[in-house]
């Protein structure tokens, strides 16, 4: 069992994940700690502190230890107690802060991913299979959408659908399943817009080029029903490049969600990252960055694993080209 390709793949990917987390946590920790500016001034909020208070705060946050010692303590805390440090701004453990907010971000990214997969891949297949007006309008729409930054998309969506038409709420998270869906629809569309365009374009080109291949023409001339040809001979072969582009775009959403959460006033980890960066609340910046890097690596591994399931010719863990 230990030598099966899947086990090996998972072991190697877990190793990569740990390596990525160690390297990025080290770089982030060192750069944040060598940063100009004093975390004490953030703690005091501009008030002048007595010497005793400064000493106490230095002790509490270990501000006087050498950087490498503090990094080692940090890693120990994370590994042994799942302790990511304390937020200076919110006065609570960073792990609590993240666990309270990560759900909202995960919902947003999942919603956007569903939109990208359903509508992006769908529009690409439709445009790829049939030339004509529909195809041309899909090209036009995706060319424009590809260039619209998520925050501009957010503003346009708010202006039209929330303020003008009153269809959907503009800001906030909402509660319950229905409320969440309602509140997250506009953010998810804003987040998905440019990724949708990229996925549509790649899907369309891939389907179009599969259609012109000889095995498809042979299948058609043998009288195999068209839907079967599309499913078995076109989409099956097109699935690898489509998976690649969907994987890349969906992982890029993790970084972009900060922008969209800020625009729609959602309380996810992206918005918390921005607030923490503005307030120099380094514990939070660090914790959330590590979560994002981890999500990024895991998502990449899932995509690589999908290749092997989609195409038996690809060995598990090998990059499909």
């Amino acid at each position, binding site marked *: 069992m230990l030598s099966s390709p899947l086990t090996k793949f998972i072991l190697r990917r877990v190793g990569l994940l740990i390596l*990525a987390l160690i390297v990025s946590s080290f770089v982030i920790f060192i*750069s944040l700690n060598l940063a100009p500016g004093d975390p004490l001034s953030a703690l005091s909020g501009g008030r002048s502190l007595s010497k005793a208070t400064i000493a106490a705060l230095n002790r509490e946050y270990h501000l006087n230890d050498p950087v490498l010692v503090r990094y080692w303590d940090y890693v120990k805390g994370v590994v042994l107690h799942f302790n990511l440090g304390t937020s200076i701004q919110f006065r609570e453990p960073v792990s609590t802060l993240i666990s309270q907010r990560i759900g909202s971000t995960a919902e947003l990214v999942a919603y956007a991913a569903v939109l990208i997969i359903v509508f992006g891949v769908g529009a690409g297949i439709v445009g790829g299979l049939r030339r004509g007006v529909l195809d041309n309008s899909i090209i036009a729409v995706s060319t424009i959408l590809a260039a619209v*930054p998520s925050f501009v998309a957010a503003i*346009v969506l708010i202006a039209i659908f929330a*303020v003008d038409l009153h269809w959907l709420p503009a800001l906030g998270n909402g509660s319950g399943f229905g409320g969440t869906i309602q509140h997250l629809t506009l953010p998810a569309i804003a987040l998905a817009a440019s990724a949708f365009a990229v996925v549509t374009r790649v899907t369309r080109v891939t389907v179009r080029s599969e259609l012109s291949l000889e095995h498809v023409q042979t299948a058609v001339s043998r009288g195999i029903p068209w839907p079967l040809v599309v499913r078995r001979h076109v989409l099956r072969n097109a699935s690898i490049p489509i998976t690649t582009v969907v994987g890349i775009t969906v992982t890029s959403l993790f970084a972009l969600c900060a922008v969209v959460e*800020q625009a729609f006033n959602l309380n996810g980890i992206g918005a918390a990252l921005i607030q923490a*960066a503005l307030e120099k609340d380094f514990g939070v910046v660090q914790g959330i960055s590590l979560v994002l890097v981890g999500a990024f690596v895991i998502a990449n591994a899932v995509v690589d694993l999908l290749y092997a399931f989609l195409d038996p010719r690809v060995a598990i863990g090998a990059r499909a080209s």
Partner: protein
Amino acid sequence: MSTGAGAITTGRLVFPRARRRMAANQIVYGICWLIVAIAVFFAIFGPLVRPHNPNYSLLQFQYVGPFQAKGYLLGFDSQGRDLLSRLMVGARTSMLGPLLVALMAMGAGTLISVVAAWWGGWVDSILGTVMDILFAFPGILLAVLTAAVFGAGLIAPTIALAIAYTPYIARVLRSAAIRERARDYIASAEVQGVSTWSICVRHLIPNLGQLVVAQATLVFAWAMVDLAAISFLGLGVQPPTADWGVMVSTGEAGVLQGYPLESLSAGLCIVLVVVAVNLLGERMAERGERKLS
């Protein structure tokens, strides 16, 4: 994208449909150049030709719309400042940041790819690994981190994005440089005893030139979106400085009250310039690849 028309730019055109498509493409690219020219003009001369002081507020004219006050073509923003002047002046920071990102990424990317292609072997694989690691890090996250470290402003995110986009340029150039390295003229120059430095600077890099410029153009477009997003988040250019990204963000309050013009006009400026630069860059890249292959 436009491979249909792009593939037949040389040689006589006999097909009327292809000729019509090419003419249409020429118009599109003409418009793109026009948009870029206008944006560059205002980036350089904006503060000189603006009709009003972009930071002077006439509070009684808050949210007054376009064409309603004489001399104020686009009307006023949330604080009664002239919107048109702010858009004109805002071109400078909005264009300067991406330009610096493109130039820095271009320099570093060219250096890395030529070094990797020339020496190959372990140099190439080490540089390749470093680039792969950088690839894994989203540019905007890097920019947010540097802004957290060095404080909000234009400089830190610009450098961060330059670092983040270097691998994008290096990857494309590396394969082109390896192909070029294998050509006879390089070997003959080496046999003649021309120094490595002078072969690279005089022959190799100029021959990659078009591709380098094309990639830098694409990086400019991506960096423009990212830097505007950073400013939108409050980590880049700071208000009240007029900047398109900042204006999208400061206008959001107006959007919620039903006065979306400030946000939308600034957003439109960003989108227009990005689309134009992107289309031009894609065409340049296509041509550069074809010339080298």
